[in-house]
């Protein structure tokens, strides 16, 4: 097979950082080529070089595509040749229809007048290919993230794609949607479309990829051919982190004490549609030093449950009791919930967790300003000491605590969020997808921190869509589906199969 794309000796520097250092990658025609590496390894930068976001001249090295050297000045140059990139953050306009989104910037028009019947019939064809049964007139905001991802792919198809680049396409998809998407890639492969797949989910990569290029610290480590012997996930991880990961989850000596936290008959309704009950009579307890997980599919109501519990941050008509150390506590506002020893670290760091334009120090003390102030006046020096303390303890990699949160990598941002909540000194920490979008090495650090919390006698409630993570970290796992707790499993008896089984069984009822 000959190569559709060859990138040779790509080097790209930003002020102070060498983001890419002599990177080489060869994509064969009609293959699925996976690009893996820790956050900050240079994957997205490389793809931006390829697609022309960083124009020719801003990097060194050469791009050979379809046998010729190419010098892309902008995205439109690369798109013209069939290189289409789908970014992690979807570029769809929520309040336009599927059809309008698909042909945005590429309108089916004559003299500026849109031919709507052509648009709709083309859209229908494209949607059929990607397996969507939605009407082309449906607004994008009304369909789920999984389907939005498929719309993006349909959009790419509308542009005669030859090389499709997907940046973390399944990051926010559930298992079913992820599988559908991967199958679609395999279909494209059969039709001769090449793709580059960037993903942290190694199980998906081993499932579909033909070759895997591993990047580390801006350089190419190796390219693995998946057709020569079995490539295990551990093998890939070794390339990514440059060391063997003996165990992905740090060991912990569990010392579980008495029950400290109880939720009884917790219910919540949808914030707009008051007749829809999103959380249904949930009962749950956490013991001292215990890590309790909540498993479930996307949309099972786990985040909604956690946020309704945390100061009624979600929903309406919320009812139920919360007890800490056997005493009922008031969690009717975030302030009261925090004061009563509850903390909630969100699944969406950038939207709900951090003030991105503020520095690390101010983010850490935000939930407990009283802890660094006297009579409403902030003690700068004490605040700085607190921030430096957490920066050291949590190993937040930055030049100092005055660095803005926006400039940190995902793992370090998450450490800032965790620091913020630890400084509020909670008894119970609710961690919602604590390792989402974080690379393998940083994940291990986050796990170690979580274990440390349990060792310190706190109760941890961990929500995660990655079942291996729950099985590796938790002492006990609740399974949630359609707003209700449908099973409670001790980790010793739990397995991915059992969890899925419980979900499927409850769905059938």
């Amino acid at each position, binding site marked *: 097979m000959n190569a559709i794309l060859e990138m040779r000796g790509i080097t790209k520097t*930003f002020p102070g950082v060498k983001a890419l250092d002599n990177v080489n990658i060869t994509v064969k025609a009609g293959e699925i080529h996976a690009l893996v590496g820790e956050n900050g390894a240079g994957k997205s930068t490389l793809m931006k070089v390829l697609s022309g976001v960083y124009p020719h001249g801003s990097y060194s090295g050469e791009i050979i595509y379809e046998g010729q050297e190419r010098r892309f000045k902008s995205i439109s140059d690369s798109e013209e040749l069939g290189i289409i990139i789908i970014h992690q953050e979807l570029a769809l306009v929520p309040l336009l229809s599927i059809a309008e989104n698909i042909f945005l910037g590429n309108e089916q028009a004559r003299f500026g007048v849109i031919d709507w019947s052509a648009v709709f019939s083309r859209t229908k064809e494209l949607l059929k290919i990607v397996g969507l049964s939605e009407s082309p007139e449906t607004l994008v905001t009304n369909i789920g993230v999984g389907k939005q991802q498929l719309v993006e792919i349909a959009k790419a198809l509308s542009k005669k794609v030859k090389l499709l680049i997907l940046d973390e396409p399944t990051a926010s998809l559930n298992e079913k949607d992820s599988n559908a998407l991967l199958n679609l890639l395999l279909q494209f492969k059969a039709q001769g479309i090449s793709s580059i797949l960037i993903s942290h989910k190694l199980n998906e990569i081993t499932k579909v990829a033909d070759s895997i290029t591993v990047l580390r610290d801006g350089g190419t480590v190796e390219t693995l051919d998946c057709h020569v012997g079995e490539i295990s996930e551990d093998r890939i991880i070794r390339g990514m982190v440059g060391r063997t990961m003996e165990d992905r989850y740090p060991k912990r000596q569990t010392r579980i004490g008495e029950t400290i936290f109880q939720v009884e008959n917790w219910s919540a309704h949808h914030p707009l549609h008051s007749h829809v009950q999103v959380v249904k009579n949930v009962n749950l307890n956490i013991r001292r030093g215990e890590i309790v997980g909540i498993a479930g599919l996307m949309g099972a109501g786990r985040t909604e449950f956690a946020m309704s519990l945390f100061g009624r941050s979600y929903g309406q008509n919320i009812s139920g009791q919360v007890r800490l150390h056997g005493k009922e506590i008031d969690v009717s506002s975030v302030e009261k919930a925090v004061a009563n020893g509850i903390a909630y670290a969100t699944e969406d760091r950038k939207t709900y967790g951090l003030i991105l334009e503020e520095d690390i120090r101010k983010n850490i003390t935000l939930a407990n300003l009283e802890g660094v102030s006297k009579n409403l006046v902030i003690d700068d020096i004490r605040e700085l000491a607190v921030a430096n303390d957490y920066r050291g303890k949590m190993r937040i990699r930055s030049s100092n605590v005055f660095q803005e949160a926006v400039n940190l990598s995902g793992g370090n941002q998450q450490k800032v969020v965790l620091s913020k909540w630890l400084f509020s000194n909670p008894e119970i920490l609710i961690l919602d997808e604590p390792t989402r979008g974080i690379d393998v090495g940083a994940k291990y650090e986050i796990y170690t921190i979580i274990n440390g919390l349990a060792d310190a006698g706190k109760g941890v409630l961990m929500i995660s869509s990655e079942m291996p993570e729950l099985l590796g970290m938790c002492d006990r796992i609740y399974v949630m589906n359609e707003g209700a707790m449908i099973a409670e499993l001790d980790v010793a008896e739990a397995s991915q199969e059992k969890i899925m089984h419980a979900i499927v069984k409850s769905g059938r009822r």
Partner: protein
Amino acid sequence: MDTRTVDDIHVPQQKTSWLEFIKAHFRDYGMLLALLVIMLFFQVATDGTLLRPLNLTNLVLQNSYIVIMALGMLLVIVAGHIDLSVGSIVGFVGGLAAMMMVKWGFDPVTTTIACLAVGGLIGAAQGYWVAYFKVPSFIVTLAGMLVFKGLTLALLGGMSVGPFPVGFQRLSSGFIPDIFGGQGFNYTALFIGIASVIAIVYFSVRSRANQLKHDVETAPFGLFWAKNVLLALLVITFCYLMATYRGLPNVLVIMAVLIILYAFATNRTTIGRRIYALGGNEKAAKLSGIKTERLTFLTFVNMGVLAGLAGLIFAARLNTATPKAGLGFELDVIAAVFIGGASATGGVGKVTGAVIGAFVMGVMNNGMSILGIGIDYQQVIKGLVLLAAVSLDVYNRKK
């Protein structure tokens, strides 16, 4: 993956040089520099009229109400909102004060307290819709602007009302009397100047020592003293010039106290910090236990009180309340805050910036008037300066 990650950049701790420090803090010093350049320009262009004691006094009096409102507007803008109604509130409160004292026979003290309370109430009324009802502040205050412009006309019956009792006029036209009884030279003014210089130097030396003790990045030694000496010279020269005329205006003292109060509140208090967090990311602030609605509400109440105060000062300065008072003030105030480096999306801005911004506008107004530039081209130039200042700021932030 984020290309801007900095995981592996270790910036070695070293002594920062002057140039690097100024570069890093360009936004803090840039506007101050611009103000000095503008002043120098007009000082030369007006043959030294700009800094004559009489004109300097005028400059302060003319600008005081803009500066005072800029303090409140800064908080509103940092919180992610805007208040278009302040000009109308100035007119309305001024009119109310006039009616109370001239027509209804209240004394100045009662009038002042009542008017500030009314200002606060107006702010509360608008803040309620913005904070709890989530109506965009642009709409709410646009409505307020029309409502209070109309109410001012109604209240005054379309006429000018004045003059005011002497006690009330002092608010704007009064000066701090000389306790040393100097003839033609106000020793108190100079004394206050020297005392404030000592206070400034004392506090900055103490804070620097504290920072050094805890290994916080500080301005280089030379720059630190250069800045302090320059500031001291400016303050003393200013006070000396004022002393040769009639001393320090009462308004100046009110203004200075408010500036210090608000600078402290935004930099050092929990409420200030929370307003920045609210403007930076309201959702995250809310999930961190900050009562975002109440905070938004309070920034509008605060704005209302300050607009009320500005209304009183303005009325006292003209010694009459007219239905046209305060017309277009909101534009100068908002421009001042943005020239001072605040971000239109909230979360960013400084009290010192807003004050400097207000003086940039004020000096230009004053200087251009002395030069005889018509009101037509004055507005053109002011508009361009606003655009230039903010573009420069945006450009700087991108780098």
